[in-house]
């Protein structure tokens, strides 16, 4: 039997991504709220050693750079400079991978300074929040890799905008989580 399928425009896809982002905000919002509830209950805060904070700061800068790279990739694509587009997209992917590596380094540093997983509620929340975020970043990296592997005919500005939207969103989530951890 002959069947008809539909193709959805990018605005509709953007809308779907926005709804997914609302769900992700609620997920991390619950983690953050739980962090504060436990913090108030325990009447203490996470005392991260200076070097772990430093790693966190560097990681934050890396993911911000990755987000900016994605923005520049879009800018170059818009102006029809495909080589530059590909370079900046590659930068976004590489810095994304670097961020994941940096987060693993942060975790290993936490273990080294005597704050392993299951050490206490608040530090566990730091592991949980950064781990949940890391999983989302890995998913985002797969999407970036997929975008990078597409042939030129299949790429469009709208597609890059949608992928970029999610990538910037993940950057924003990390900045929020890191700030919360330091409060």
């Amino acid at each position, binding site marked *: 039997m002959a069947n*008809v*399928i*539909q193709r959805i425009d990018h*605005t509709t896809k953007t809308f779907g991504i926005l709804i997914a982002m609302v769900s992700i905000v609620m997920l991390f919002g*619950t983690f953050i709220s739980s962090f504060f509830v436990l913090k108030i209950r325990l009447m203490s805060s996470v005392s991260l050693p200076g070097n772990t904070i430093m790693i966190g700061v560097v990681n934050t800068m890396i993911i911000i750079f990755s987000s900016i790279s994605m923005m520049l990739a879009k800018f170059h694509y818009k102006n029809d400079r495909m080589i530059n587009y590909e370079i900046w997209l590659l930068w976004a992917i590489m810095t994304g991978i670097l961020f994941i590596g940096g987060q693993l380094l942060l975790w290993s540093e936490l273990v080294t300074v005597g704050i392993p997983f299951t050490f206490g509620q608040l530090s566990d929340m730091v592991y949980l929040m950064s781990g949940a975020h890391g999983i989302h970043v890995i998913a985002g990296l797969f999407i970036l890799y997929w975008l990078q592997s597409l042939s030129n005919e299949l790429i469009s500005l709208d597609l890059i905008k949608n992928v970029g939207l999610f990538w910037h969103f993940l950057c924003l989530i990390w900045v929020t989580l890191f700030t919360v951890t330091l409060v």
Partner: protein
Amino acid sequence: MGMDMEGTKIMKIHKDSFWSKHIFSEDHKTIGKQFFWLGLFFLFFGGALAMLLRWQLGYPEQPVPIIGKWMWPDDGGIINPDIFNQMFTMHGTIMIFWAITPLLIGAFGNFLIPLQIGAPDMAFPKLNMISFWTMFLASLVLLSSYMLPLGTASGGWTSYPPLSSPAGGIPGLGQTIWTIALILMGAATMMGAINYITTVVRLRAPGMFYFKMPLSVWGLFLASILNAVFVPVIAAGLVMLLLDQTIGTEFFIAGRLASGDPGDPLLFQHVFWIFGHPEVYILILPVWGITSDLLSVFSRKPAYGYKVTAIAMSTVVALSSLVWGHHMYTTGMSPLLGKSFMFLTLLISIPSSMFFLNWLGTLWRGSIHFDTPMLFAMGVIWVFGLGGLTGLYNATVTADIYLHDTMFVVGHFHYTLAASVMFGSFAAIYFWFPKMFGRALDPFIGKVHFWGSFITINYVFFNMMVTGYAGQHRRIYNPTEYDFLKPLSGLNEWITIFAFFLGIFQFLFLLNILWTISRSKLCEKNPWKATTLEWTVNYPIPHGNFDEVPIIYYGPHEYSRPDIKDKDWLGQNELMEVKKWQM
């Protein structure tokens, strides 16, 4: 303004293989049917557990007839306390997440939304397919816990820590498997919600403005918004619980049970109910919408106060996110906070009363046709009325302190969640069966199913409230062990007898479905003379639904218009011949 189908273009013709057509189909109608069968299976599974629970409460520690000795030979066919705990846990979990959710939101959400708004499919068909198979995987994970040596989860469908935590909680892996299954189920639900919301917002046919959508779509749309917002909340809580259960964190482990700083079990209750109360509305909103539409169809009258009903339902959605604390009055909550939650909860009765009165307004002086879907829709009015009214007692702090965790609460939420939602589902199944399977369910068996269910369900749940008011606690294994509950033995027995009859009538329904699908002839395209778009397409509906994009001129309830010739209804996309003076 509507979006006028700007989000979609019909692109190409292709052929489906058996696998892509029936198993990994991206067609919303096939996925809807997959959810339908999944939900139906679990409805009977969860229902069977309910029968066994009732047996134990009606005839405590007596061997279960026929199947008892086969199922529990070591206990002489008696349900032991551990099994009893597992049963009520799985009954609640299955009925809420694996029966009602797939049936109403999975099956009818998928089947109806694109058809009723004039879209060719869901916005993201692949995601839709993944959603079903994630749900299927979640089902397998949940059922796999029956094979564990210590059995399934047994901490109740709420699974509060410490019961669900490893420290002082229920032994075995059942709780862990339960948590994993629920996380998977939540992921499937979120995928569905993203799809439903996007489809409604972006893929409505030209002229299908929000206030021209059928109220069924309104209900499903609003339920999806709640799903998208609140399922992630419980997902976060469940991930934390899973880490407590597996890795050794202590987020919810309190006092001396914790090896270090104590966690906070009440935090889980907050997270659970921030999701859990909206979940109640997630389940009932589609029923409100379906009931509103069906009352109009079978009264041959426009739905009274259509816009008010839509706005009232939306108001309930907003308020539902602010009332979770009424589940926690007895947790030592500050009286001021308790009063605030009480006030907000009672406030919900205002919009609820508005659409409830609108239902009565639709019936008023209507030309009522007592077909099976109408009987069930009218049944919803009765059972939801009782469920809603008894909710007021639970919402009031002073009454709830006494009623909390009694069978009164069980009776109340079964009136709203079991009776109302199931009657709404049955109404939907009887009504849309001709469109889903091309055949109409037998009306005589349908009516016997309705009256049998209506009488027995009221007896069961009303008297549960009576036993609760008399002090019978929920989830107790043997009520006769308490002297003050001994006088309730007779009533408990009768509730059990009526519950069994309720179960028997559901088998009649199942037989009706199987007989109709295998034996019955194809019925006409629009047997109910309804106005909405799904009735304009022939069975089997092809992938893509409509030959051409429908254009909408009228609302969903154009019945008995004096200016229509020859018939008493007008399709939403039907240009009518109007009298000259109206031009």
